[in-house]
């Protein structure tokens, strides 16, 4: 407190260090964005180019060659529908566990989380066989079901930890005033749990949008999501970095921008309310 000069030096050093580390960590993504606006020749120039005339041609080539919009539509539909479906299943369960706590509630919660720990690959063969039997291979319905199921444990947990922070007395008071269960839900519970629903929904949207294992193994040209579109660019023949970058940028931009706006909500949800 009595060393203003050394404090100033520490402050400047900290700021400098923070910015340096951040730019270093962000560099790969920044490079991806730059490369998306280069020609293929500029993309592999030695030494790497920082200044160049940007071109938009990669984006139109990507759309023409691989029907970006179809994949984007698949990603959007599967992630939104599975999130809504998941919320519809998880919310009643979380409500029930938060307000009607039984002796086995904790065990049920732990068990739910443990199903998430099973590696997805463990279920690959049976799920593949089942999906094939039901005609759900390479279908959006199939992906929606899988995404919903694999996010469900986390959704129940997150909603549970939000709901248990809402005092039960508020709901009881509503019940005493003669509200039916439905009125209680519509007018008291739902408004109070909007925050929890939002952060749970946000996280699931991000997880489903970025999900790669099931979409790579269960979908192809018809129901393929953006994750599979990008994986198809990994073929070793030829270097098409600027097209790869353009396709990648188109695949990640919606969810990254979305993530920027919702990061605070997301952290709260992700930590099951354990970190305040």
């Amino acid at each position, binding site marked *: 407190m009595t060393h203003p000069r050394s404090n100033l030096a520490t402050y400047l050093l900290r700021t400098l*260090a923070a910015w340096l580390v951040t730019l270093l960590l962000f560099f790969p993504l920044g490079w991806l964005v730059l490369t998306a606006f280069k020609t293929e020749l500029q993309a592999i120039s030695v030494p790497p180019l920082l200044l160049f005339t940007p071109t938009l041609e990669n984006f139109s080539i990507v759309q023409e060659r691989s029907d970006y919009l179809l994949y984007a539509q698949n990603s959007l539909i599967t992630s939104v529908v599975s999130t809504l479906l998941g919320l519809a299943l*998880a919310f009643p369960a979380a*409500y029930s566990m938060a307000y009607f706590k039984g002796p086995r509630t904790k065990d049920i919660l732990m068990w739910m989380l*443990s199903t998430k720990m*099973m*590696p997805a690959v*463990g279920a690959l*063969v049976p799920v593949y066989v089942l999906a094939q039997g039901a005609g759900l291979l390479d279908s959006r319905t199939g992906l929606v079901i899988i995404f919903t199921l694999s996010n469900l444990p986390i959704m129940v947990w997150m909603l549970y930890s939000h709901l248990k922070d809402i005092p039960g007395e508020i709901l009881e008071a509503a019940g005493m005033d003669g509200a039916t269960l439905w009125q209680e839900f519509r007018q008291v519970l739902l408004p109070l749990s909007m925050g929890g629903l939002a952060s749970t929904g946000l996280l699931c949207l991000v997880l489903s949008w970025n999900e790669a294992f099931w979409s790579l193994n269960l979908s192809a040209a018809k129901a393929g999501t953006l994750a599979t579109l990008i994986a198809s660019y990994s073929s070793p023949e030829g270097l098409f970095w600027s097209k790869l970058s353009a396709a*990648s940028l188109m695949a990640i931009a919606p969810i990254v921008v979305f993530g920027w706006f919702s990061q605070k909500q997301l952290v709260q949800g992700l930590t099951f309310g354990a*970190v305040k």
Partner: protein
Amino acid sequence: MNRLIPRVLLAPAVITLLLWMIVPLAMTIYFSLIRYNLMQPDQTGFIGLGNFAYFITDPAFGTAVLNTLLLLGSVTLITVVGGILLALLIDEPFPGRTLVRILLISPFFVMPTVNALLWKHMMMNPIYGVLAQVWLFFGATPVDWLTDWPLWSVILIVSWQWLPFATLIFITALQSMDREQIEASRMDGATYLQQLRYLYLPHLGRSVAVVVMIEMIFLLSVFAEIYTTTSGGPGDASTNVAFLIFKQALLNFDAGVASAGALFAVLLANIAGVFLIRMVGKNLDK
């Protein structure tokens, strides 16, 4: 009547999860005990533990288990330590802190396939990649990362992807620290290291538990990053258990052996789960 409602509300989620767990598990157990190769449909029948024997004696098995643990351990260690350091670095206000936060969190929202391809090509390519250029600039010989250091390259990529997540959680935790307590300790002449040891780190205990738990769930079955970069190679150098099962199932078409492998993965997950609940569950319960 009133006791029925909670059960009715709970039932859909529990039943779907139960089905999601039990049906594939039962089928996996069944498949693991029979001859079931999609390329040899004429060979059928019960073979007992033959598939298990085949999977365990596969020379790739030991490597895969070791790689899985190495990947899990290294990435968790890197992200927890790195995340704490980063969070401490940007805990106090400085110009552009909001922007720094946004830039830092970004990799977490990027899908694994994009992350993997970005690193594989534009960063790690031994001729045109940025890292190769940096190496050349300093007069060193560029490294062929994915060939010479396949597992460590995957670890690097996955760590880069999860570091933002850990950092964000630690930042959130640090914000709830008692500022007066820190000020008081400074007045009493505590050095920064002492503050770190007695104030900051104990406060972060719980969020470390959260980070370890969530990362464990996702890192035990890293797949896309391996699939898109090294395909498990060269040889089996970067194959983890998840990828080994995938190879058996979809590349060798041997559903029987893959199922036996899947049961091992389930076992591994359970061991990790027990360990996790011991270490972390208590901490979370508080």
